[in-house]
């Protein structure tokens, strides 16, 4: 597991060091600012039901759909007052984690 890797550069406090990377470091994910108009799944599961349609206007807290995971029916709710732009999932669809489910826009 400790095969010789090429030296790479790592910048710490302005200084450039010659060093090797770890697998974990190479595979780290880069942060992106979250977009609250995109509603992603927070757990892999099945879409049990969808209660809304595009262009429908909703208020904060209204239930958009049911996502079943770990034997629990999770209600996915509207995070603010707004309108449905597009629905990216279908009823009975099995989706992974961090999957785009619904696009919305603010009122």
């Amino acid at each position: 597991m400790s095969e010789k890797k090429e030296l790479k550069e790592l910048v710490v406090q302005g200084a450039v060091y010659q060093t090797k990377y770890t697998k974990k470091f190479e595979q780290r994910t880069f942060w992106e600012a979250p977009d609250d108009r995109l509603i992603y799944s927070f757990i892999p599961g099945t879409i049990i039901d969808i209660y809304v349609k595009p262009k429908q206007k909703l208020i904060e807290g209204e239930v958009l759909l049911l996502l079943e995971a770990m034997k629990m029916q999770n209600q996915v709710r509207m995070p603010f007052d707004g309108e449905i732009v597009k629905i990216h999932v279908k009823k009975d669809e099995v989706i992974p984690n961090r999957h785009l489910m619904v696009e919305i826009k603010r009122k």
Partner: protein
Amino acid sequence: MGGGEKAIEKQAKMGKLTARERIISLLDKNSFHEYDLFVEHSAKDFGMESKKLHGDGVIIGTGTIKSKPVCIFAQDFTVAGGSLGLMHARKITKIMDHALKMRVPLIGINDSGGARIQEGVNSLAGYGEIFFRNTLASGVIPQISVILGPCAGGAVYSPALTDFVFVVENISKMFITGPSVIKSVLGEEISMEELGGAKVHAEITGNAHFYAQTEAECFEQIKSLISYIPRSNAKKALSYPAKAPLKGKKVESIVPVDPRIPYDMRDIIKSITDGSDFLEVMEHFAPNIIIGFGRMDGETVGFVANQPMVLAGVLDCDSSDKAARFIRYCDAFNIPIVTLEDMPGYLPGVDQEHAGVIRHGAKILYAYSEATVPKVTVIIRKAYGGGYIAMNSRHLRADFVFAWPTAEIAVMGPEGAANIVFRKEIAEAENPEEMRQEKIQEYKEKFANPYVAAAQGYIDEVIEPKDTRARILHALQVSENKSVFLPNKKHGIPPF
């Protein structure tokens, strides 16, 4: 005969030894004495009443490793898949109680499909009793877990509570929920090996401390470890005849002067240990810090050292966890700690900050501050900022702090410091880059050396690299009767 010829054949086909073969390979010849061979389960449901399980699927006993006494249990996968029922657990807890009472190391060989479902809640009770004893014995006797088969669900928590976990390629499997459950519930497909194989735990999770290719190699690692550690927290590790380091690389020729060029810190460790022997712990996890055992003048020493070869030797979440736990281990078992320092600071990045590098990094501070065993630090090259404080500085009560002439003890590296201190001059200069380089040089000359810290007494001595072993040895000799007292408390609340 355990679970009979067929089951033993199956075990061999998986490349695994039987429980009894394992015990015999690990212990000194003819030293094993078994107890509770005739124990039987008392389950009455699901047809269990008519089933006889030999020894109830686990072998317990006592023996010696290199003439040092140990208590041992080995789950027998050939008997009902090594599943844990009430009597199986009682045998394990019996030998655990024995180990704790007699103050001898406990070795557990895990090879079990998990709870014996037919015995219901009694299986869960059995696990709970084991976990409780693991916790009770923690820091009193060494506890070693050897994963030589599946170890899934609740069963994984016993190894996690012990001091050292050994895994073997293709044989060890540890996870809370297995691939089939993950697939059915979450739709994620992954093999057992990718989910919780030996390599995963040695490299990624940090659950394992020793990784071997074969069971035989694993047993050699255990024997080596046992030779370095004391029997209990009331003892010192046994002394061995002193040996000089091998005449390998000259210690003074290992380190490049330019602090940005790496080298293998292990070469320095091996240049100061007896016979150049070094038993590295968690070699593959967070390799930007090195931990492990060596001997100096025949006495066990725990080493904590930054590794410039990997990620420039930075501190991060994983390396902090790794070092802190090892420091606490050494402190609990009366093993002096030698810290070799060459580190530019903490790893920058959103992922690190969001992963809680604050609380992880704090563990090192806590562990060093709390440790009362002799603590010696040698600053080889870079010692910048918070990392300088963390790596067993005088301020955390290092007993001796030495520095090589190449040491740079400063609040930050020259590049970063120049940008802040001389911001105005650089911005207003005709040629900012030229000015920046000039100011970096100026800062380097003034502060990138050991003498500023030495002038404050934060460093006791600037030493020649070739004298490193002699100076550490003397420091350890002087510290032999070290006696300090911490405020009385039930226990502290270390950052987790």
